[in-house]
């Protein structure tokens, strides 16, 4: 199978990642931050080394790197932990359900106001102006995707951050589609970053990161044992302990560390150029095919290519491609508002998302397969 569903999770993982997970189970079996024996301390030291690597990657202090189970976990911590009754949360109108659903859940109790800034097909100037118009002292949080997981559109987060900073409002970004592909740093792009470990960082599934700048500390979602200040029922309000109640996913974290090393070794600009090059190749290869293309400008876009067959329902198209040996994702991609903007509801569209492991010949055979399918039903 040729895998082009890397926006959902990257596959394959680097061999170093797979090996490190096995090593983690064999050599780092003590519970970090709990005991004083050598195995526990050795594991804690190894976990810290990943924290340090992630900190360097995202421009944070090591203690401000919080390991989560995915990007959704990090976003939920930010949204539930920073919302204030009676105040406003601002997002874009292209958000994933990992942002929209927690806000909607709060909204149901009537405790918060939600403004979705229209960014679809708007230029950076218009987007920044719209955010600026809506961000006021009434806001408790601005949170948005660095890039849409549907259209790939990149938002001018640096400039939105400048507005938030000048008004003292916390700004968090969902870097699900950009971590490992575009630069994303706390203090430059946002106050808080929420990242999956298993996409562009090439770590195992079930890993994620909440990256804080230390200025805004959301309330944690979970409470429990942290191995510190255990007599008190109040946890120590210092990261990462404050957010990491319970045993952390040591094999996942060590695997994520190997993924980060892999990305650093290849360089994010090389990865980005490679993936965008493959998207452009797919775009050119399909211009004359019987398909509708929704992503066509890669000057400000994450490496995502979205399309539909003209005469075949989306899910049938993905099934045909799967039968021909290609893994792509059809549907709504958990981001209905983005599909609403594109006019692709209720079926959605087909998303092609390459990784560093794909090559030109795979893309060309993918284009041939699409032409073959579309010619069949003309």
């Amino acid at each position: 199978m040729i895998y082009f569903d890397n926006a959902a999770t990257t596959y394959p993982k680097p061999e170093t990642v797979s090996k490190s997970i096995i090593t983690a189970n064999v050599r780092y079996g003590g519970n970090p931050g709990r005991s004083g024996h050598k195995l526990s301390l050795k594991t804690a030291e190894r976990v810290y080394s990943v924290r340090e690597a992630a900190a360097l990657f995202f421009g944070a202090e090591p203690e401000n790197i919080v390991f989560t189970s995915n990007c959704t976990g990090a976003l939920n911590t930010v949204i539930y932990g920073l919302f204030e009754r009676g105040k406003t949360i601002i997002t874009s109108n292209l958000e994933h359900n990992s942002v929209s659903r927690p806000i909607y859940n709060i909204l149901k109790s009537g405790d918060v106001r939600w403004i979705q800034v229209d960014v679809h097909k708007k230029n950076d100037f218009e987007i920044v102006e719209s955010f600026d118009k809506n961000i006021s002292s009434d806001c408790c949080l601005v949170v948005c995707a660095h890039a849409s997981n549907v259209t790939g559109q990149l938002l001018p987060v640096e400039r939105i951050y400048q507005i938030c900073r000048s008004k003292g409002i916390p700004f968090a970004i969902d870097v699900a589609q950009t971590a490992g592909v575009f630069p994303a740093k706390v203090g430059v792009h946002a106050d808080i970053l929420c990242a999956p470990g298993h996409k562009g960082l090439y770590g195992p599934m079930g890993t994620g990161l909440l990256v804080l700048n230390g200025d805004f500390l959301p309330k944690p979602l979970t409470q429990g044992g942290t191995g510190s200040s255990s007599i008190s029922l109040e946890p120590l309000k210092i990261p990462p302990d404050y957010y990491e109640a319970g045993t952390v996913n040591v094999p996942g974290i060590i695997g994520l560390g190997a993924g980060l090393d892999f990305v650093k070794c290849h360089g994010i600009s090389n990865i980005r150029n490679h993936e965008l090059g493959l998207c452009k190749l797919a775009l050119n290869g399909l211009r004359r095919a019987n398909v509708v293309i929704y992503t066509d400008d890669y000057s400000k876009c994450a490496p995502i290519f979205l399309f539909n067959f003209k005469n075949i329902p989306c899910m049938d198209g993905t099934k045909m491609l799967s039968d021909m040996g290609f893994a792509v994702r059809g549907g709504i991609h958990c981001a209905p508002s983005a599909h609403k903007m594109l006019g692709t509801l209720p079926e959605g569209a087909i998303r092609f998302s390459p990784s560093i492991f794909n090559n030109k010949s795979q893309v060309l055979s993918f284009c041939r397969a699409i032409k073959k399918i579309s010619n069949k039903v003309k």
Partner: protein
Amino acid sequence: MNKNLNSDCILIEISSITLAEKAKRILKSNGIRSEIRRSGKGLDGCGYQLKIVGDTKRAQALISSARIPTHGSSSCWEQ
């Protein structure tokens, strides 16, 4: 058995293993040897202790300038 205070060695209480690791690495990069131990003397019970041998004053200054919160210190006992 006699126990003597060793002035070249201190134990610094740090609540979190992450902060203890951070302190250890800062000291190491400055040529100061330290070791992390589990401790029950920290803030509200369980925590960690950094055993520092050598230039303890400089070590404390480095930890302080890195803004790593500590919860007291004591001299090491030597047997």
